[in-house]
């Protein structure tokens, strides 16, 4: 059952990595604006044709 020592070590290491990733994102301002990107993704890159009036 000594394998448990190794497994727990791995799981904690993994969790620490995620925590660090969160801190990194936080420091680089990825959580500053949580709304605008959700709108921005719906805007097309290339300007569309003027829609025809009907």
């Amino acid at each position, binding site marked *: *059952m000594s394998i*448990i*020592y190794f497994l*727990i070590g791995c*799981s*904690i290491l993994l*969790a*620490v990595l995620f*925590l660090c990733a*969160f*801190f990194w994102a*936080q420091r680089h301002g990825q*959580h*500053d*604006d949580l*709304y*605008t990107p959700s*709108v*921005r993704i*719906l*805007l*097309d890159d290339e*300007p*569309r044709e*003027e*829609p*025809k*009036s*009907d």
Partner: protein
Amino acid sequence: MAIHTIDATTCYHCGNDCTDVHYELDEKSFCCNGCKSVYKILSSTGLCSYYAYNDHPGATRARVEKRFEYLDEPSIIKELVDYKDEQMTIVTLYIPYIHCSSCIWLLEQLNRINPAIYYSRVDFLKKQINIRFKTQEISLREVVELIFDIGYEPLISLQDVIKKQNKGTSDNLIRKIAVAGFCFGNVMLLSFPEYLGLSVNEQNFRHFFGWLNILFAVPVVFYSGWGYFSSVRVNLRNKVLNIDFPLALGIAVLFIRTVAEILTHTGAGFTDTLCGLVFFLLVGKYVQQKTYYHISFERDYRSFFPVAVQVMEEGMEKPVPLSNIVIGQRIRIRHGEIIPADAILLKGDARIDFSFVTGESAPVNKILGEVIYAGGRQLGEALELEVIKPVSQSYLTQLWNNEAFTRKQDNRMQTFNQKVSKYFTVILLCIAFGSFIYWVPANVQRAFSAFTAVLIVACPCALALSTPFTMSAALSIFDRNLFYLKNTDVVEQLARIDTLVLDKTGTITIGGEQSVTMHADLNNREKQYIYSVCSNSGHPLSRQICAYLGHYESLSSVAYHEATGQGITAQINNHLIRIGSMAFVLGSGNIIELATEVHVMIDGIYAGYFAFKQEQRTGLNEVADLCDADYRLYLLSGDNDHDRRALLPYFMDHHMHFSKSPQQKLDFIKSLQQSHQKVLMMGDGLNDSGALKQSDLGVAITDNVNNFSPGSDAILDGRSLRKLPQFLRFSKDTVQIIHASFLISLVYNLFGLSYAVTGKLSPLIAAILMPLSTATIISFTSIATHLAARFRKLL
């Protein structure tokens, strides 16, 4: 897919009705030249997709004149930009009009209009745009003018609180929550084997898990939970016992006992209770912080005044920052601008709207040589003035030297939490020491374990969470009803209010707009006479009569005589016309006019009168009904009392106070407070600032939350005035919910204590009790708040 039809009568750009003249381009109609020019710029740069994302995304543009000369001044540029060097400049601008996806799209395409702007990013909720541009190729003024040209006028003020809102504290809290949550999760996993039972030959694991648990507890206590210890230190120095004390005590005891148990192999410790406690407490703290991105509660006169003013020097106009204005300088104030300092009128036709400053509803005419106080907005043509007092010492800004503005806000009401936690701490310590003393003679070890168990179990986690969760739920319900509270404490203050004081102009009446009604039977010829007479006068009421009557040809009059503030006599086509107050027209001087009326007499025959009534906000009826309940209602106005009669249905006669200066308003609030009334002041203008600050709860009312509103505890959108009674009742409900959840948490505490005093608290019970009570409290408060809001029809 939206159908994009071009309606011939609505403007393609802003969606307003095209009323008089049609402006057309590319078979599209526009309501004004401004809208057309925006379309022209966008179509010439191929940015017409702007109109594809939303119908009529633009703002109407009545004013096309640019007034950004001051952005060439290096001293002003320095204040505004975030960063500047030879290569690039970074600036963040606040644009109130940002409202849809088209706005985001267009403002992020600035590069296609001018390549010198190479980065622009919109923050939709904060209504800000972050722009980077090449310093060499384009100036800040050109950038701002470009944004203005495409229909987005930035709001530039040197005291831009919104920009400086520090997000440092919130960031820090999130990091602490992340650490606590991370440790909580891991510890819980590692504690399970212990709870489920380990066999004798697995004892090695027990020590291993124990050590790991201590390792995880250390950052939770010394990083995430450290705020509680430092807060207790500060509070004890100030001789205050608040809720942080039992919390810090609980955390400390949990940690020490856990470490002791694990080191001595006497038990498993309470690591997961400890981590969970800190985690939930911090989450509660986070929930309590409500951030409004687009609202500022801390504004003063500096954000009301312009950034710079045009100074005349040797015949040249030059923009000068407001703080550099000195006595004797000649300034030029254009149409729609605000007079920033007390000054003497030298040139021009001054028609000044003081409604924001003094509460007077009608614009005031000033004659050459008269002193004009700061804060008025010029409605007529450009003026020239000579400054007689620097901005900081003018009549208006002196109010900010009052002690109400310098005093710290510590005499506000105590919250329920503060009141209760004092007794709670004392009782908790009594029980803990009581059980310790009880067990000492029998078993010292058991005495210690009972003592610590009491402190652990009774740790007022649920109590500490009930207020933040209830209040944040309440806050978002208020938010949804367009009532924005500064923080969660304001809800409790709202619940204790028993007196409402309302300002008149702009608060219960809609600023500026007066409706005119004619109580006279006049034929066209007579109307023309009246029009001709009134068109000669600069008096605001005369102008309104002219506007009401519409277009007539003005006839020349003889023997024209205007008695200032009383009326006019004139002769037209041998008809004698008398227009003015009742006393002036009818000659009987005793009649006191209660409403604004202008009477007309033609050839000695009384013809009737024009009545002027301030447009009232809807909802005054509902607010007035409150005084039948437990609330006292006062009116406090800077205006004269011509509306007294019109307001009698709403206010008791002796509760209406008119012609009050800003200082008198403040003193009135103070006198109410001295007779132990809890006062809510509601106002809109700078003249209410002192009263708003002095009152127990200052509410600024506004038609547009992005516009200037004086510093206050809460901002109410004018449309929601009618809901004020519901707001007050709902705030009382929330306080009751807090009381109830306090009782619930007491039940849990008593249950836990019954175990704790015997000294036989197992880690498992603590680990179940703590999250269970937290979950109960959170779900109870959110459900109860929701139901209460529904009951008060706020949802």
